[in-house]
């Protein structure tokens, strides 16, 4: 952080009162690039607004991201502490790896044998036509380390899909959300898990309720913290072995 400006400025030429709520000046309050400092009232408004907008327009992924940031004030420190207390998690916090197309060696991952984390991850990206670079950087988290934690959670999301074997359609996303809700306790995941099914057909809802969700919850409870795995160092590890190690039950 940087030093605060004092309020000793001369009276503004328009003679207005000195008191004025100001939310941002570039370079003075930003704790990390892209950070927008917000007051508690703004966070509350953002949380409410983004929740409504995300329900109204599910394609507004940025709203889901904002909801996560503005409601994560309890869950994020919790996650950060879990990471700090685990040797691998601690290393991740120190080294701050990022999962982006520029840091991944796609060629090497594609060349790995089938069934390995790297190969299956790339397959997942190709099959669902997604890229790790579309994750929103955090804006409203007022702590630089917690901002990294939420960024890491977002970037690891695709790996969750891979480990759980879930596609990126609505059903798959909801299942992953249930798993993440149990794992992270992030209110955004809980809300997503609870409200996501609203847009599913009855048939899918049935499968969801009877098989997928119970499995996701059991796995979530059984598994160790998913943010404590240094995925970038385990590309060669077979997915099944990694699942066993973490404690995720085989997908139905």
């Amino acid at each position: 952080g940087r030093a605060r400006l004092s309020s000793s400025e001369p009276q503004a030429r328009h003679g207005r009162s000195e008191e004025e709520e100001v939310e941002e000046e570039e370079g003075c309050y930003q704790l990390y690039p892209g950070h927008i400092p917000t007051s508690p009232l703004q966070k509350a408004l953002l949380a409410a607004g983004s929740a409504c907008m995300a329900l109204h327009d599910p394609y507004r992924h940025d709203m889901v991201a904002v909801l996560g940031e503005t409601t994560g004030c309890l869950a994020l420190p919790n996650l950060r502490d879990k990471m700090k207390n685990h040797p691998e998690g601690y290393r991740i916090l120190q080294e701050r790896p990022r999962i982006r197309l520029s840091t991944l060696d796609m060629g090497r991952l594609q060349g790995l044998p089938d069934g390995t984390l790297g190969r299956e991850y790339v397959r997942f990206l190709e099959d669902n036509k997604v890229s790790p670079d579309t994750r929103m950087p955090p804006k409203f988290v007022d702590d630089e380390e917690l901002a990294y934690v939420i960024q890491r959670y977002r970037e690891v999301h695709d790996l969750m899909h891979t480990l759980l074997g879930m596609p990126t359609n609505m059903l798959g996303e909801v299942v992953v959300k249930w798993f993440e809700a149990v794992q992270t306790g992030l209110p955004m995941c809980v809300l997503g898990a609870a409200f996501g099914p609203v847009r599913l057909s009855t048939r899918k809802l049935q499968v969801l309720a009877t098989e997928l969700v119970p499995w996701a919850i059991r796995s979530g409870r059984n598994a160790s913290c998913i943010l404590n795995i240094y995925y970038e160092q385990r590309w060669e590890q077979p997915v099944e072995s990694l699942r066993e190690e973490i404690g995720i039950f085989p997908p139905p």
Partner: protein
Amino acid sequence: AAAGLCPCRTLLARRGGALRALCGSVRGLAAGPETHFGFQTVTEEERREKIYQVFESVAKKYDVMNDSMTLGIHRVWKDILVHKMNPSPGTLLLDVAGGTGDIAFRFINYVRSVRERQLQRKLRHHQNLSWQEISESYQEDKSKSLGDSQVVVCDINKEMLKVGKQKAQHLGYSEGLSWVLGNAEELPFDDDMFDVYTIAFGIRNVTRIDLALQEAYRVLKPGGRFLCLEFSHVNNPLLSRLYDLYSFQVIPVLGEVIAGDWKSYQYLVESIRRFPPQEELKAMIEDAGFFKVDYQNLNSGIVAIHSGFKL
């Protein structure tokens, strides 16, 4: 760590003054005369660039955001502007920074309805004519539903003009409307051309207001009228506090939720605070050569309409 310095609720006055110059001096000293972009200090070139980007970014959601931020009241303000203008058929209007066409469409509607009333009155006086003569006079008047009135919408931003043209097409406005890409500080028009010049919620974004006012004077015909609709300063202290609270707490949030763009709306509320108040703007308009300059506050000064004449 940095959490202790987190400014969640700092109350700070940040405008003008030595402290700002200090902040500003860190940014290129070489690059030219300094001005403001919201509460930041930037060079004039940087300001023009940033403002262009703001409007490029907000263009598609401009109208939706206006409705959300002002709860639809901006429509009333614009209606009042056009009523004050009271254009008669045959008026040539230049609407600068007219972007998405709100003033232009209102002008066309107004002139059309005035024209219709004119025609109705004419009909009533001609009730002694034969059926044939009456229907012949329809033919003549049909082609002049606007009565030769024209509006030229001029904006510096391609995206805003694009949205305006699409809107015009969608709403069915075609005749009497032209779209020109141009800079308010240096208009691409000849001297003494227009009957009325309007700039609604645009002059705040101009970097050299004095130049824009001079250009306005130049392109108006003698007898022409200058009208400016813009956010201004609220005198009432209670209302002012509520307005500030709403502006700084709610509007950027609306920007983020509706348009996915916090920063542009943060700029917007800051730029309103930076803009000269009513009397100062009046003086600037007089400096440009206009006479009978006056202003009308709307909603206790949240918005003001300034008017002047070229004699």
